[in-house]
């Protein structure tokens, strides 16, 4: 057949193309029993959270209590409207038994709204604010900032810090931390003497750093996440500030250490326990799952590939493994009875010893974590270390 003839047969070419593209759909067996819908940002500004989550989902077991798992993973790019559309799709088309996502707070709130409306157990992979967490169907996996903040503020008080300069993101993440500092921090004798904001994509924070240091603080508090937090960390050290720097959990990544380099001396990080599972004492309730997760994750994605964000979905599986068998006694998956039974089981089957702490959900508390969900770290030689308690 000549080229010209082939092109006349565009019709057949089109059919062939459609057939190839739809292969994965046909290949998916419709036999799975428990359906989980996950919406996370694997592209866009939340991709640094979404990609480790996606990797961690690959580590999920194939079945729970003999029931096969069917996982539907959709990208929402961190956009609340896409997350809401995805959640609707999960509820209406896929009839999911469990919903998860998203990793950015506004998108997670969108998904929570759908979950509450249709009655599907929902795990938020972002610390959504209390009004959303009060919802009947939504459970929160990451530590709410107050759990981490109290741990950090206790330490700051012990270190004799009174005047604090805040430098953080000009978004809801930075806002959440500065509010913790201004409201809860007061109880620990902390006074915010400068409140400076920047955006992750900014190429310079010199102005903010100068103003923060000109306020003559005892310590600098950085409320930013990922490698974005490195900019003020390097900035305050370049301007000769030698006092302690306190950095929030979002920045606890190896990429941050790689970029901040020597500037991380005399810096304390708040974090979930997963980053230092090996350093925890053997009787720590978070050690066993933490080591299991790290072994699986770093075995697959290489040494030092761990992040704080990925293991939240592992924790969801820890919870489901205990709650699903309880719910199965009442109803079959795919029914609204099962979803209701599962929701009740999640509330009543705790405590769950997970990688990020010990979850104990109650009808009043859908955050579930206590102080065991927060640790303090220092960094040395490109590695995080557990900071010994100050007596």
């Amino acid at each position: 057949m000549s080229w010209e003839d082939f092109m006349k047969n565009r019709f057949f070419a089109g059919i062939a193309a459609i057939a190839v593209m739809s292969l994965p759909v046909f290949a998916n067996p419709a036999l799975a029993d428990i359906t989980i819908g996950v919406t996370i940002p694997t592209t866009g500004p939340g991709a640094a959270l979404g990609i480790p989550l996606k990797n961690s989902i690959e580590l999920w077991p194939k079945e729970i209590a003999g029931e096969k798992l069917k996982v539907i993973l959709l990208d929402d790019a961190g956009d609340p409207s896409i997350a809401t559309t995805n959640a609707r799709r999960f509820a209406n088309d896929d009839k999911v038994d469990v919903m998860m996502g998203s990793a950015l707070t506004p998108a997670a709130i969108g998904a929570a709204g759908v979950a509450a409306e249709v009655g599907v157990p929902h795990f938020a992979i972002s610390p959504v604010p209390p009004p959303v967490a009060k919802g009947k169907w939504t459970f929160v996996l990451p530590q709410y900032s107050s759990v981490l903040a109290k741990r950090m503020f206790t330490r700051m008080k012990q270190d004799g810090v009174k005047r604090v300069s805040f430098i953080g993101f000009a978004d809801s993440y930075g806002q959440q931390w500065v509010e913790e500092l201004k409201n809860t921090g007061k109880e620990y004798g902390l006074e915010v003497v400068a409140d400076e904001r920047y955006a992750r994509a900014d190429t310079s924070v010199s102005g903010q750093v100068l103003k923060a240091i000109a306020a003559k603080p005892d310590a600098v508090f950085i409320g930013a996440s990922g490698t974005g937090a490195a900019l003020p960390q390097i900035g305050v050290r370049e301007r000769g500030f030698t006092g302690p720097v306190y950095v929030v959990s979002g920045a606890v990544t190896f990429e941050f250490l790689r970029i901040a380099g020597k500037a991380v001396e005399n810096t304390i990080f708040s974090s979930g326990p997963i980053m230092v599972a090996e350093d925890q004492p053997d009787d720590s309730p978070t050690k066993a799952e933490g080591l299991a997760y790290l072994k699986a994750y770093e075995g697959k994605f290489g040494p030092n590939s761990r992040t704080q964000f990925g293991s939240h979905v592992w924790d969801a599986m820890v919870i489901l493994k205990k709650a699903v068998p309880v719910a199965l006694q009442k109803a079959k998956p795919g029914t609204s009875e099962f979803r209701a039974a599962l929701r009740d089981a999640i509330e009543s089957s705790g405590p769950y010893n997970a990688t990020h702490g010990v979850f104990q959900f109650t009808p009043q508390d859908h955050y579930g974590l206590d102080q065991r969900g927060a640790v303090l770290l220092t960094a040395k030689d490109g590695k995080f270390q557990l900071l010994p308690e100050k007596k």
Partner: protein
Amino acid sequence: MHLDATIATFLIQDGLTNGAVYALLGLAIVLVFSVTRVIFIPQGEFVAYGALTLATLDTGNVPGTPKLLLCFGVAAFLLDLWSWRRDLKVDALLRNIALNLGLPLLIYGAVLYLAPLQLPSVVRVLITVSIIAPMGLYVYRIAYRPLADASVLVLLITSVGVHLAMLGLGLIFFGPEGLRAAPLHDGSFTMGPLLVTAQSVLIYLMTILIMIALYFFFEKTLLGKALRATAVNRLGARLVGVRTQLTGVTAFVLAATIAALSGVLMGPITTIYYDTGFLIGLKGFVAAILGGMGSFPVTAIAAIGVGMVESFASFFASNYKEIIVFGLIVPVLIWLSIGAIHHEEE
């Protein structure tokens, strides 16, 4: 909080450093616009690619960009084949293979060989620029050349498309986390209270050097004059024998080269993400608008101004910094629209 002399000098220095990079980007945007009428939004992605490529080379790894270059080359090759499907000439085909397949393969092979060697930073910069610059060529071939005679609006929409595509490719090839390149030179000296790093001096020197080079290119070389002729009058230039496709390609390669250099200069002083480039490019765009999208000297001066405003805004009102910087455009647009005679897009 009041401003004292020390803080003011710090802020001026910071504004100057960023402004110099914005100036380079502004110049490239004006260059591309005047020659091809394309508003070059993907400029920022080239900056990010440059910085990220250099940062990856610093660690001794092979960056994703050579592979991307190869993909671009193959796409350009296939497009050329398609456009010649009724009239294929052997010599044109050979030239095409050399340019679209040979060149990226050569660069890819060279990077594969050179990346693991611990080469001096100047060589790493040269490698980076030689990876990014040809991308301008292929991007022009793939996205813009088929539309060379379309309206400014169509070209603008194409630019948005290219920007989004390159953004997504950046995420695939570099990952979601930011990178920071090693400084090209580690030294620094003090001037009064001011700590001046060698990197910032390098930025000033490079900016001035590129401006001088551009001046000589446009004033003294035939190709430069052809570019200017195309900018002044496309049709007229064609009538006197200027190949407007060639001038278009040249403008894009120049812009990509400038963007890669900006990325190389910017990479060591800040953390660059796959999506940071857009905002940096946009600041250059503000400068280009302040320069009326036509004047090189006004654009350069405006860029320094943008850097200064940004720096002082980050001190006085960090929350409103971007609003202040982009707010600069509004009075200028009003002023320009008062002066301009309205005419429909042809």
